[in-house]
């Protein structure tokens, strides 16, 4: 019985010698191939980009835009929904400069992108959410539910004008859509105050936060 160490090879010694020689030369070849300029490069970091209203291409912006409406007594009693105006001036797409929001005084342009290196570099999609407080407040203890504010969407010339869908704030976190890796989405949001009840006089304020995340 042969042990593994004593087991004779079926190959002649000369052939084994050639194999040993070839192995040594492979090592030499590896040394020779080191004569070259080399560069180690790291992949780009995973990145999300989001702008709501005025934004800066691939950059940060401190601007927080406002949508508002002022009701007359008749409108307050009438109970009809009212379109809200915007202080945004962002009409042009940050993606291609297209005039996506032709009337920014009543619209808010929202654009989002998600970029990753490959299938192992984070999830296939990033998630776009908006978080709103329960109420707008006037400082005197009076409130209006945030759910009184909704929005419609548009994107002139786009085959998918509702890529971020229409909806209404819910006084909490609301998932709007997901953004596929290495894509850019955008459309235009027009806000509406439902005006379903008579409220105490005052200026009611509240702030919503849009978030694009790739956990």
């Amino acid at each position, binding site marked *: 019985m042969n042990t593994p160490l004593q087991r004779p090879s079926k190959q002649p010694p000369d052939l084994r010698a050639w194999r*040993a020689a070839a192995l040594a030369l492979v090592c030499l070849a590896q040394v020779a191939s080191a004569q070259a300029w080399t560069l180690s490069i790291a992949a780009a970091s995973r990145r999300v980009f989001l702008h709501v209203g005025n934004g800066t291409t691939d950059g940060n912006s401190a601007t927080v835009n406002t949508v508002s409406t002022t009701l007359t007594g008749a409108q307050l009693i009438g109970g009809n929904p009212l379109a809200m105006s915007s202080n945004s001036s962002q009409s042009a797409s940050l993606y*291609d400069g297209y005039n996506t929001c032709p009337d920014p005084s009543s619209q808010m342009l929202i654009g989002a992108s998600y970029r990753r290196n490959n299938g192992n570099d984070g999830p296939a999609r990033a998630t776009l959410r908006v978080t709103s407080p329960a109420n707008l407040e006037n400082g005197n203890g009076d409130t209006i539910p945030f759910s009184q504010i909704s929005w419609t969407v548009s994107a002139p010339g786009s085959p998918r004008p509702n890529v971020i869908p229409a909806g209404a704030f819910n006084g909490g976190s609301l998932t709007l859509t997901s953004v596929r890796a290495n894509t850019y989405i955008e459309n235009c949001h027009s806000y509406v105050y439902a005006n379903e009840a008579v409220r105490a006089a005052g200026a009611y304020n509240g702030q919503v936060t849009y978030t694009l995340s790739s956990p």
Partner: protein
Amino acid sequence: MRRRLFLLSPASCKAAFAAAASLLLLMVASPALANPHRLDDSLSHTVPASAQMAWRPQTSADPNAGVEAWVRVNIRIDTAKWAGRTGNIYMVLPRDQSSSMEAEWTTNGTLRAGRLVSGERALVYTGRIPGNTLQDQMQVRLRSAPDWQSTTRRLNFYFELDVDGIDAPTAEPSPTR
């Protein structure tokens, strides 16, 4: 599981040495027999020594814009063996993975500006090789799609020479001191 280990007898060791010497002789001799000839540019270096790719802006004209990085490369190619000969020198980027890498560069004039994609070579010098070294500085832009199979890569550029005429060195390289 059984492991196989081959031990060489003293006689086999002698045979191995002889075989290695023969193969080594063939290896040393073969570059003088056929183009291309690998050139030594081990004194070349990049600034910075490593780089991180950055995202290129997505636009409607380039919705699939990938990543890019810029590096400066100080090139120093040892051409002592080939001084006075004429030929073409190419920069080569072997393919390191299925994701292609594009390199595009400008130079200070000794070498040619150009472009290549991994797996290709590009002409950087043609004509008479003037001396023991070819030196230049390249500004290299690297671009690729975001389809890497890894989070880091190592690009191993090198230079090779297709020499004109009788394909052999004119003289032995002078010793380095």
